[in-house]
């Protein structure tokens, strides 16, 4: 009844508790992590709460209109300090509490040493259609 966007960051979120860069995990830890995310999405589809989810490549650029007849400006490769979205999932749930609960579960995906990453996920409600109100 209400849609939320879960944002996973490559960079820009507060440091995770189990904060080891993924390239230093063992391969089976990476597989377990990927499987966890896949199972999570499958489960949400079965509960009727899944809308969509995609992973994003780390490459990205800021783009801006630069005036009539000129090509858009891009800022080139990302500077080290910039936020970087790794992927997103859209869920459709009954309550905010349920959205928080699911984000918590997603944040528990296993990382290095098979332990939960405890990474920070950004949770954003969608702006919805205006409800009918009694004035």
């Amino acid at each position: 009844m209400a849609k939320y966007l879960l944002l996973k960051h490559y960079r820009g979120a507060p440091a995770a508790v189990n904060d080891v860069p993924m390239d230093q995990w063992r391969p089976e830890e990476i597989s377990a992590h990927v499987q966890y995310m896949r199972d999570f999405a499958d489960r949400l589809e079965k509960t009727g709460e899944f809308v969509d989810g995609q992973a994003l490549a780390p490459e990205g650029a800021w783009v801006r209109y630069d005036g009539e007849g000129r090509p858009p400006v891009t800022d080139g490769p990302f500077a080290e300090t910039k936020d970087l979205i790794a992927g997103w999932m859209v869920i459709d749930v009954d309550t905010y509490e349920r959205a928080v609960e699911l984000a918590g579960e997603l944040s528990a995906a296993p990382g290095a040493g098979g332990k939960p990453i405890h990474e920070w996920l950004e949770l954003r409600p969608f702006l919805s259609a205006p409800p009918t109100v009694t004035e």
Partner: protein
Amino acid sequence: MDEALLRSLTPGVLGILVRRGADFAAAEDAVQEALVEAVRVWPADPPRDPKGWLVTAAWRKFLDATRADTARLRREDRVHEEPPPGPAPSVDDTLRLYFLCAHPSLTPSSAVALTLRAVGGLTTRQIARAYLVPEATMAQRISRAKRTVSGVRFDRPGDVATVLRVLYLVFNEGYSGDIDLAAEAIRLTRQLAAVIDHPEVAGLLALMLLHHARRAARTAPDGSLVPLAEQDRGRWDTGAIAEGVGILQAALARDRLGEFQAQAAIAALHADARTAAETDWVQIAEWYDELVRLTDSPVVRLNRAVAVGEADGPRAGLAALAGLDATLPRHTAVAAYLHERDGDLATAARLYAEAAHQASNLAERDHLTRQAARLNARRSR
């Protein structure tokens, strides 16, 4: 093939199967199969009694499926003991479906989906589109809901209040997609009102009709919100208003007031005013007092503050607002409006901007941003 006819017959057929003792999920499957067969057979060979045809076909499908089941013997016994099907009042069956679909064991979104599917006769695809989720997600939501209620026995009537909440949720979901959910909610509530004699059912139907009557005037062609005071009242649907008022008056006459009747009374007073200035705010404020008494909801108290502001002046409105939790949705917007009416444009502009930041939907956010911009422009002139 008359799709509307099939859709209108589906709930009744489903209800009959459930009453004859078919498990809800199995009955639903059987009805779907019967519908598929109807689509195949009817064009060449239209039945004289479409509903009877569907009941017979669906019951046969149900029996086929049941026989194939592992619990075959037990169920065949039950079928054997079942009295032969005769004409039955379809009225009770539909009512049973309403209560089943709004069963307390279901989450609100599941109850809504199941109601649209089983009582409304919509396809899974249509419901998924209306709620902007993938069809697979909605299919799962519906089959989970079916499983949840599948063991439920209906020997006692369910809770009308829960059914009404589900229907109001459908109504409020808005107007996107090829299915107009508000119109669908009105259709279903009308159907419910025809089979159950309850003042709050009538109250909800009246409320929906009165809100719906103003729908065309609520948004500008560009999609932006038009406040009640600025709406072109010539675009209100007077037929729907008259119907809503009639239903409401009959309900109120029974002297069993409930929150939907009180809300409808407020909507009726708005609909009754030829211009915004003629609105009877004193009576509206009195109805809000009733509504506070019935629901004691903070949102209602907030709306009451607006009405008090109109009836007794902005200072009285601000006083009514003072005791309320400032984190309530629209609290800041109401405060902004009352401060503007009170002449404190600087505070009003600041609060409008703050309210825009907190708005949960796009049209409202844009509207509040424009209000702030309007006051800021006026102040800097």
